């Protein structure tokens, strides 16, 4: 498109620049505003007197002697045990990503290497499963989980999230493995390897870019899940997002909104870093299914 740019009329350039600036503010400003405000007292963050207090921290200054305070963070992480929720999220994400990639890689590899008709139908089934809103499955989980005393524990939520993750993982890895030439493992098989040995020694060493991209999305699903974790975990085992939702019920009445604000900021920071490190993989993953179809 660079050829067009050279001849771009000034008016269009100005309009385009203004639009970009506006979108930039719309997309980024709420995050910076909340980050900044999370270090203030509630009466500054929600300012009745003067909205500039949220920037200058006038009342925060009056109470703490400086315009910033970590009181919200202290309240959330120490008083309200948000550290436990963060730890739970870490555990859930780690095991969901590992399990999901292990069984998804085997399945996706098999789908890409079998020429039989049922591959298509399995992928269609996965597509249908992917479209199911997780919340609609929850009332199917609850009776057996209560009956067998599985409700509330992290491993239960982990395995459910792994399963919910599989359809997407299979699609992504299936299309990724198809880009790896079949000659690679076929020639290994000619040399006497079994299919699994061919997978183990020939495919695994070259599959990491696709697996990392898929893993990022598995991580995001586990990290961001609300429907499953809020319904299947007990208070002790809650992950960050349901914990934040639980804050809302209590904090509005107790005047601890800043705890929730601090918790929200804490939950966003890892995502911020993740996008910073893996922007290219995330973009390629988002467009993988779209651009080729």
């Amino acid at each position, binding site marked *: 498109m660079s050829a067009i740019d050279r001849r771009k009329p000034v008016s269009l350039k100005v309009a385009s620049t203004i639009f970009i600036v506006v979108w930039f503010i719309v997309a980024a400003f709420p995050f910076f505003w909340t980050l900044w405000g999370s270090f203030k007292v509630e009466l500054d963050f929600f*300012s009745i007197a003067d909205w500039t207090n949220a920037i200058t921290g006038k009342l925060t200054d009056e109470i703490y002697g400086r315009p910033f305070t970590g009181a919200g963070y202290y309240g959330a992480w120490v008083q309200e045990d948000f550290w436990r929720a963060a730890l739970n999220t870490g555990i859930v994400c780690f095991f969901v990503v590992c399990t999901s990639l292990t069984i998804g890689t*085997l399945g996706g590899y098999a789908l*890409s290497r079998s020429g039989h008709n049922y591959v298509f139908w399995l992928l269609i089934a996965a597509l249908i*499963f992917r479209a199911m809103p997780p919340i609609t499955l929850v009332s*199917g989980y609850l*009776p057996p989980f209560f009956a067998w005393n599985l409700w509330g524990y992290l491993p239960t939520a982990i395995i459910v999230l792994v399963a919910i993750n599989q359809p997407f993982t299979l*699609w992504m890895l299936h299309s990724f493995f198809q880009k790896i030439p079949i000659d690679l493992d076929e020639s290994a098989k000619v040399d006497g390897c079994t*299919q699994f040995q061919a997978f183990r020694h020939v495919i695994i060493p070259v599959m990491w870019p696709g697996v990392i991209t898929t893993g990022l999305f598995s991580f995001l699903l586990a990290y961001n899940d609300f429907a499953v974790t809020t319904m299947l975990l007990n208070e002790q085992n809650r992950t960050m997002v349901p914990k934040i939702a639980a804050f809302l019920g209590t904090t509005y009445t107790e005047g601890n909104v800043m705890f929730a604000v601090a918790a929200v900021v804490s939950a966003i920071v890892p995502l911020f870093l993740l*996008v910073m490190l893996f922007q290219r993989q995330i973009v390629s993953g988002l467009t993988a299914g*779209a651009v080729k179809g």
Partner: protein
Amino acid sequence: MRPWGAPHTQSQNSGPGMKHRTFFWFFLPTALAMLIFIAAPIVSVVLQSLFVPHEAVLVETENCGPFGCTTSVVIDQEATEDLRAEQPLGRFAGLEIYLDRGHLATAEVANAWTSSSSIGEFMSAIGDLPFYRAMSFTLTYTFVVTPLLIALGFVIALAVNSLSQRIKGLMIFFSLLPMIVNPLVGSLILFWMIDSRGVIGELIQYLAGDPSLSLKASTPLMWIAVIVYGVWHSAPFAFVVFYAGLQTVPQDTLESARIDGATRWQQTRYVVIPHLMPLVTFVALIQLMDNFRVFEPIVGFNASAHATSLSWIIYNDLGGETNQLSAAATTSVLTIIGVAILLSPVLVRTWRDYRGKA
């Protein structure tokens, strides 16, 4: 986030392919996970929606004393246990739950139809029924947010595409944030800003000249707020997909259009947009399904007094003091039917691609 293109199955002649038995063992773990935790729950949800839990068996006992007889009703524990053991699913209710007031409310709808004197009155009577109330917001949200996010995403993609390389990366970075944070967290951030004491809330009060204006108190404003949130959250996805598509616009077609004297607008209209059309369909199909399940923003915005959705009803039924499993299961089945309707064009498209390739 969702690779929904047509599955590119290996053509039969490109090699012997994997043996059935090998395929089975490779695919078993993932198949088991999906069967146990997706397929089986769907069956279970359908069953639950057709049965209601047994009520306790009550027996009337008469206690006669010197001052006359009193009858009292007590639960017959033994009979109740027996009944529950005999029919663990509960009492078969057929479509009873589907038709009750909390769901399709056929009796109430029929009643409203006969008693209302105008369509408006009928609609407002229907709007008080929880299922139809949720349905009206869910559908409005789905069909307003989807076109808006596609339009916004397209314009962002065009604008970002004309930037210099270094700013592009930065713009993509910040554009990804609204999409990548959990909808609950994202909606909370916006909610705190549009709160009547928040920065945007105060700005709106100032612009409207009404210091008592509060989004939380007004149904139309709440709907708009949730819809704005939806566009903010999903436009980045459309943007990223369209941006990738813009990188593959055939340059020679553009060049010849330019030589033929096409204006910039005509180039966009007749070369760029047709090139992106398949992607627009792709984004639309995905987003219709995703927006239909709108749920977290309603929790985040604390909007349930003004706007509910089907997913929110399930969440509410399951989360209350009483686990209303049958009610939640019934709404789940109705939601799944809605998703199935929205999914059908995707399936048809995938099937056609598959036939086309085979």
